[in-house]
């Protein structure tokens, strides 16, 4: 594909505009307890049942760093091929809100725990590298609920103090497609590492989207707007498209773009101004005096490094080299760690090519259809592997295999059992097949004549008859061979 084909451009009266996108992804750290307290982080609990005195900011309560969350952030940093900083500082970001009990959020401002890194995107037009600016740790706020009581706002502090990683990209993304792949790649890396479950429905992954536009080919970046707290890839893409068009329209009208924070209205599919630069918060960041600067030794970082599993990029490389997969196939199979595990389990004693096709074909269709994760696949890797071996060794045909596959779904049934019970074994005995074919020739004399007189197309008819009579069990290859011999 040429470069032009993949470019996301907004065109007005012959002028082309490029879109420049940077993301601030908020990823909830997978951890049993919160960043600075021992409260549970389990999703879905009754409101205000997972709140400690620290989370609710009672007088005299002090934060104590959860070492596990620090390890998780460093792990993620390593997964992003980023620099891990030996010294980082927790700051207070001061603002008032009902669901922010301390009146400040503990975050990292000048000295984040993770510095610059990168993420590689596999786009249809090739690989693209997206720079990571930084990753820092911060506390989540609670939740304000406005629709329970007609007059009052309710506050649920279960989420207050939960550890988040804010992953800030460089403005290297240039289309909604790239945003899609970037988020998926980030999620994939974090799921491989076990540092964030990436569950967008539960709010484990959200993003602030920075969008600006510039005339094609220009170097200077335009004024950007930040769209706050978008919680699905689809909404991010919709918001970007709306926002980029809005900005282009403004420029076309000769107007300026105001740097501002906007929100995306998912119902109306539009972004709206939340606050302009003038009334932006002054967060009065300063180092949290309740916490000493965080120092991590090289030994500590190395011990985490030694614990890092094979990540998607490396796994993909291995799959291509070792299993001769195409880059496309490898990308699909490594994108989710569970998929890759499933794949490796299946190919342990089965044909790689067939396994790849069956997983990316039938199995994915099934999972998609039932809206299931591969970890909950109704068909186990072990049984799919058996099915593939039945095809490979000629016990059943590919077509019959599809029937067997359907029958496996309900109880994850052993395909060998199904084949035996239902008598689906392929007829591969040449003598039996010859008998069967002789009968067909006997019953279709007219057609045979036509065929011999040159109507080649009829060959398919005979094959079809053989399959029909055998109930689909005839070995198609043998049928072909015998037919060719007999119809000479």
């Amino acid at each position, binding site marked *: 594909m040429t470069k032009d084909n993949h470019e996301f451009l907004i065109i007005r009266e012959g002028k082309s505009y490029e879109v420049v996108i940077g993301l601030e992804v908020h990823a909830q750290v997978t951890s049993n307890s919160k960043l600075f307290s021992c409260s549970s982080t389990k999703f879905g609990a009754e409101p205000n049942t997972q709140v400690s005195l620290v989370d609710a900011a*009672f007088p005299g309560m002090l934060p104590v760093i959860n070492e596990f969350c620090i390890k998780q952030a460093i792990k993620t940093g390593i997964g992003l091929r980023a620099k891990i900083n030996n010294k980082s500082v927790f700051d207070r970001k001061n603002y008032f809100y009902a669901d922010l009990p301390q009146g400040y959020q503990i975050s990292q401002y000048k000295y984040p725990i993770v510095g610059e890194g990168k993420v590689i995107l596999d786009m249809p037009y090739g690989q693209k590298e997206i720079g990571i600016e930084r990753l820092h740790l911060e506390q989540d706020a609670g939740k304000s609920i406005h629709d329970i009581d007609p007059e009052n706002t309710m506050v649920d502090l279960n989420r207050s103090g939960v550890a988040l990683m804010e992953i800030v990209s460089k403005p290297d993304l240039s289309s909604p497609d790239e945003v899609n792949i970037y988020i998926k790649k980030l999620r994939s890396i974090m799921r491989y590492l076990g540092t964030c479950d990436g569950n967008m429905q539960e709010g484990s992954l959200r993003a602030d989207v920075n969008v600006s536009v510039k005339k094609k080919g220009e170097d200077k970046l335009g004024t950007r707007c930040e769209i706050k707290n978008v919680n699905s890839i689809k909404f991010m893409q919709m918001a970007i498209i709306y926002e980029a068009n809005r900005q282009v329209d403004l420029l076309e009208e000769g107007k300026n773009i105001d740097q501002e924070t906007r929100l995306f209205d998912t119902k109306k599919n539009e972004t709206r101004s939340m606050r302009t630069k003038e009334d932006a918060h002054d967060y009065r960041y300063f180092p949290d005096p309740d916490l*000493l600067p965080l120092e991590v030794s090289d030994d500590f970082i190395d011990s985490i490094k030694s614990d890092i599993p094979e990540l998607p990029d490396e796994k993909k490389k291995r799959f291509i080299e070792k299993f001769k997969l195409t880059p496309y196939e490898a990308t699909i199979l490594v994108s989710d760690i569970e998929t890759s595990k499933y794949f490796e389990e299946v190919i342990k004693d089965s044909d790689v090519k067939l396994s790849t096709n069956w997983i990316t074909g039938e199995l994915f269709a099934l999972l998609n259809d039932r809206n299931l994760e591969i970890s909950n696949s109704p068909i186990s890797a072990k049984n799919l592997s058996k099915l593939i071996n039945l095809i490979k060794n000629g016990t059943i045909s590919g077509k019959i295999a599809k029937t067997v596959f359907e029958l496996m779904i309900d109880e994850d049934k052993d395909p060998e059992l199904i084949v035996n019970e239902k008598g689906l074994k392929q007829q591969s005995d040449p003598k039996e097949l010859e008998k069967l074919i002789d009968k067909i020739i006997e019953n279709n004399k007219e057609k045979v004549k036509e065929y011999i007189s040159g109507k080649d197309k009829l060959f398919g008819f005979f094959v079809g008859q053989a399959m029909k009579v055998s109930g689909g069990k005839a070995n198609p290859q043998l049928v072909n061979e015998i037919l060719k011999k007999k119809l000479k």
Partner: protein
Amino acid sequence: MTDITSLTLTELVKNIKDKNLSSTEITKAFVERSEKSKELNTYITEDFTSAINKAKKFDEKPNFDLKLPGIPIAVKDLFCTIGVKTTAGSKILNNFIPTYESTVTQNIWNQGAILLGKLNCDEFAMGSSNETSFFGNVQNPIDKNLVPGGSSGGSSSSLTANLTPVTIGTDTGGSIRQPASFTGTVGLKPTYGSCSRYGIVAFASSLDQAGPMSKNVKDCSLLLEVISSYDPKDSTSIEFKRNKYSEELTNNIKGKKIGIPKEYRVEGMSNEIEELWKKGIEYIKECGAEVIDISLPHTNYALPAYYIVAPAEASSNLARYDGVKYGFRTKGENLIDMYEKTRSDGFGNEVKRRIMIGTYVLSSGYYDAYYLKAQKVRRLIKKDFDQAYSKVDAILTPSTPSSAFKIGEKTNDPISMYLNDIFTVPVNLAGLPGISIPAGVDKKGYPLGLQIIGKAFDEQTILNIAYSMEEKINFKNKITDWWIK
């Protein structure tokens, strides 16, 4: 036998252990005297009935192995006490009853002590005269209408008036040492990180330390021994080998080198203070220590730096008092209106002043010029001390630039009020231990204190110096009980 309430902590402990006195007798004595001393306004919350019950319980099954067996103690109302109202001297916490206990008070109860009540203090410990308390002024027992110092004013007054045998205060810029100096008592601010800040209502987190206040140095060392502990619940708590301060206390300071910083001769300091300091130097020499002139060149910048750092941290620490979760609330039209009304009504003027200063110095555009620069000054002050301690073991200075002043005298002049802390503030900025001991009186007969500043974690040395000087000085408070009718 002399009045129970005039005994020192050490004497009371001995009497209990020797079974001369029961916890109930002692507790009742302090309760009775406290009841007669309401005019001093030292208590915000009295817990007398419960105290006597606890004392009876102790007597039923006494444990004499404890360090504070059955000893009743009143504490500053900045320490959260489980089930007992904790206000920090503020209207905004007027109805706040903690469900938890501060580590420092827990340490005291663990050694057998009994809570008498919660003592008055400046609102959120912001003040030098106890006049910013929502619960009214505290009288200094030394003289009528005299301030007891602050912010631990209820503590110093109670101690001097024999309403509690010892007490604990907190010291952010001098809030233990200055009131001790104003009331002729002993007050020690430990090294930052010695005593846990867990459960203490925060004023300025990087400066706040709890510490003992007592009638003599021996009591002070015993109480420090009890309250100083490593606490994993406070990330700034430091694990170091803590001495058995009372057992290791000695008046032998021969050969110790004591520094006299020339920068502490500040402009406008009264002759009386100058004389007191000279006298102190003589005492030290008599004790066999060596006196060395030193320089702490950045001393002048300590007070301005303090009045940037402390309000900055306070402005953020006090953001949690917003009327949403606990404490006082004024209803409003909406969230912002509720915040504004709650905080306008709930905080006093001095607290508001410091929140505004703190908010200002942290604002973008001013941060570098104020907060960052103040932090640099702080490092320079710390370096001054480090350099001095390569030559000396401790430093002797006056505790305050003047004796106690009259109630109302400085309330309209915050700067002159802030100047009270000029000798104590550098110690907090450097995180060092400092002790104030009574060393004499001015011509009005009001007590004056001397401060001994030590190396970090070397509380033992300053206690020893104070102990040997105490013997020489032989200070006696003259208390007339003027407030008892």
